[in-house]
């Protein structure tokens, strides 16, 4: 650790390399019955790195580090692939396995990749159209595919289980502070996906701070239930490996058994979005003391409802809990709030506060005219400091719009509505876009959602403004994912809690709530459903 801090150069793979030398037999990663020690993981990463750097495409990359697409997730192949990329001194770019083919093509064309690394699931997405825009080197798991030639262009397909041994072990390549460690594409509710470029200095600061903040230890056994294309996975992997702990990966199709998995694997660290716990609670998987070994819980990625905290405390009574907040553009998370009694709750929302900024980072609330808001005043949350992304890939106008200089300092405008209370703690209120005006009154959709959630006793709810006629909002519609519903009762309850202009005129039950790639409710899809009118697959009044 000390040597790295003095070294201006960095590599995400440094920690794995360090532990592979000091304690090679220590467990690094386990997935579906396979286990790899630090020594074995470092060996795999080095073989991949040697293969990548041996190609002319790699040596030809100019102006920026060579880039490698990771069409893989929640597997040993995925983790070894991105470690190998980092080890070689490249930028890794996760590509979501659930991406529609057109999105996959857009990303592959935009990124100018030197290589693509797939796991078994990713290999199944290599259609003719995808192969046509693939880089000239593709690494696949054992037996996944033959050599393929087409369009007169050679795509070299290598089996990543049988890459040549490394004759002389070598350390991870040192990259500079401004070199890109990874690029993650955000879900982008409108327009094309945006590639968020994270420099080495940003992720290094993040991992060092978060490891200390959470008090991770080398004996920990941590859960991984995130897709690689969701940047919470950066916390799961690199904070775990930073301290020499082990990562236990649960594949997507087993996620409902997360509690059973965590209990049987004797996990000590639980990392997830709160909605996973909400889902497990609904499935009645959270029996009292179901997780006696969990000592640390890290929630992030979405607001943390008080109800989830209470359900979780019964299931994991020994655990201390942290609520982390942060956009992808500021490297995974940048504010934290310990979830200790008495809970710091955001008024009228029944969610835990997002807390205070990490060391050396700044957070501020800006009013509409980019002045710093007074304590208690609602405005847009902005962040500054070393964890800021370099910007969006090939989108300079958007970058300067979202990362403006204000009074000589570079900020990222989150688009999140928030306020700071008088004790300096920040509270998240929703998206600025979801702050709307109904007949001249300011309405925050997430506030309605929080009441709707309680009254309907459902996890997945969403309120949308509809219809919008001549640019003005004429009504609100509440959606609840529940098999049965009593809309009149809910409207009655809402009227007792909210001003009349904030109460939806219709409450609709929906069998399946539309979710975006990161598992968040897709309000745009709900509005499209209403616009189509007909088959809502709902019942309501």
């Amino acid at each position, binding site marked *: 650790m000390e040597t790295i801090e003095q070294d201006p150069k960095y590599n995400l793979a440094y920690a794995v390399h360090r532990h592979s030398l000091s304690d090679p037999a220590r467990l690094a990663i386990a997935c579906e019955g396979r286990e790899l020690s630090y020594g074995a993981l470092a060996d795999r990463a080095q073989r991949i790195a040697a293969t990548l750097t041996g190609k002319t495409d790699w040596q030809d990359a100019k102006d920026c580090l060579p880039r490698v697409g990771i069409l893989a997730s929640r597997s040993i192949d995925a983790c070894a692939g991105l470690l190998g990329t980092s080890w070689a001194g490249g930028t890794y770019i996760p590509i979501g396995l659930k991406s529609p083919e057109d999105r996959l093509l857009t990303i592959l064309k935009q990124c100018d990749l030197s290589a693509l690394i797939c796991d078994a699931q990713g290999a199944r997405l290599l259609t003719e159209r995808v192969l046509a825009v693939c880089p000239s080197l593709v690494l696949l798991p054992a037996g996944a595919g033959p050599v393929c030639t087409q369009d007169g262009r050679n795509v070299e397909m290598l089996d990543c289980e049988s890459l040549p041994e490394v004759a002389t072990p070598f350390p991870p390549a040192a990259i500079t502070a401004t070199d890109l460690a990874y690029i993650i594409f955000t879900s982008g509710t409108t327009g094309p996906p945006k590639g968020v470029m994270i420099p080495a200095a940003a992720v290094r600061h993040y991992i060092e701070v978060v490891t200390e903040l959470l008090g991770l230890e080398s004996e920990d056994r941590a859960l991984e239930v995130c897709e690689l294309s969701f940047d919470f996975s950066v916390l799961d992997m690199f904070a775990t490996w930073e301290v020499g702990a082990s990562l236990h990966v649960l594949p*997507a*199709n*087993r*996620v*409902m*058994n997360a*509690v*059973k998995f965590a209990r049987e694997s004797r996990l000590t660290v639980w990392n997830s979005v709160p909605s996973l716990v909400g*889902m*497990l609670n*609904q*499935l*009645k*998987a959270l*029996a009292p003391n*179901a997780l006696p070994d969990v000592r640390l819980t890290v929630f992030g990625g979405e607001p943390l409802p008080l109800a989830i905290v209470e359900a979780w405390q019964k299931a994991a009574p020994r655990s201390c809990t942290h609520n982390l907040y942060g956009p992808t553009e500021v490297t995974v998370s940048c504010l934290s709030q310990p979830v200790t009694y008495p809970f710091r709750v955001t008024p009228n929302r029944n969610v835990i506060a997002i807390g205070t900024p990490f060391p050396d980072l700044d957070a501020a609330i800006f009013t509409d005219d980019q002045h710093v808001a007074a304590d208690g005043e609602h405005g847009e949350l902005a962040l500054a400091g070393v964890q800021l992304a370099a910007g969006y890939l090939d989108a300079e106008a958007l970058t300067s719009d979202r990362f403006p200089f204000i009074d000589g300092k570079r900020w990222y405008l989150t688009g999140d509505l928030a306020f700071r209370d008088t004790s300096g703690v920040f509270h998240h209120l929703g998206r600025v876009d979801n702050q709307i005006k109904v007949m001249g009154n300011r309405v925050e959709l997430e506030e309605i959602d929080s009441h709707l959630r309680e009254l309907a006793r459902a996890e*997945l709810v969403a309120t949308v403004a509809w219809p919008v006629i001549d640019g003005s909002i004429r009504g609100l519609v509440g959606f609840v*994912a529940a*098999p049965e519903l009593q809309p009149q009762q809910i409207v009655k309850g809402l009227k007792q809690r909210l001003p009349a202009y904030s109460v939806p005129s219709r409450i609709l039950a929906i*069998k*399946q*709530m539309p979710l975006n790639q990161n598992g968040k409710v897709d309000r745009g899809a709900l509005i499209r459903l209403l616009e189509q009118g007909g088959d809502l*697959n709902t019942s309501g009044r």
Partner: protein
Amino acid sequence: MDNKTKLRTFLEQLLADYGVDASFGDDDLLVSSGLLDSQAVLQMVVFLENEFGVDLAERGFDQNDFDSLTSMLALINQRG
């Protein structure tokens, strides 16, 4: 209607709601194969509680119990 027919009818409707082919074998894996997701499993849980009085709070949830028609029938037969 016997339990198996009742269960099959329910699952066929569920699969149809998900826009997938509703024909399946008794032992076909419907969840770990990715055909159905957690929201569908939640509907199965509610259905088994309401129709058959299966008490999961007592037994503990296991995704494997909900993966096929056969495993769900076993769950119903073990209740109480």
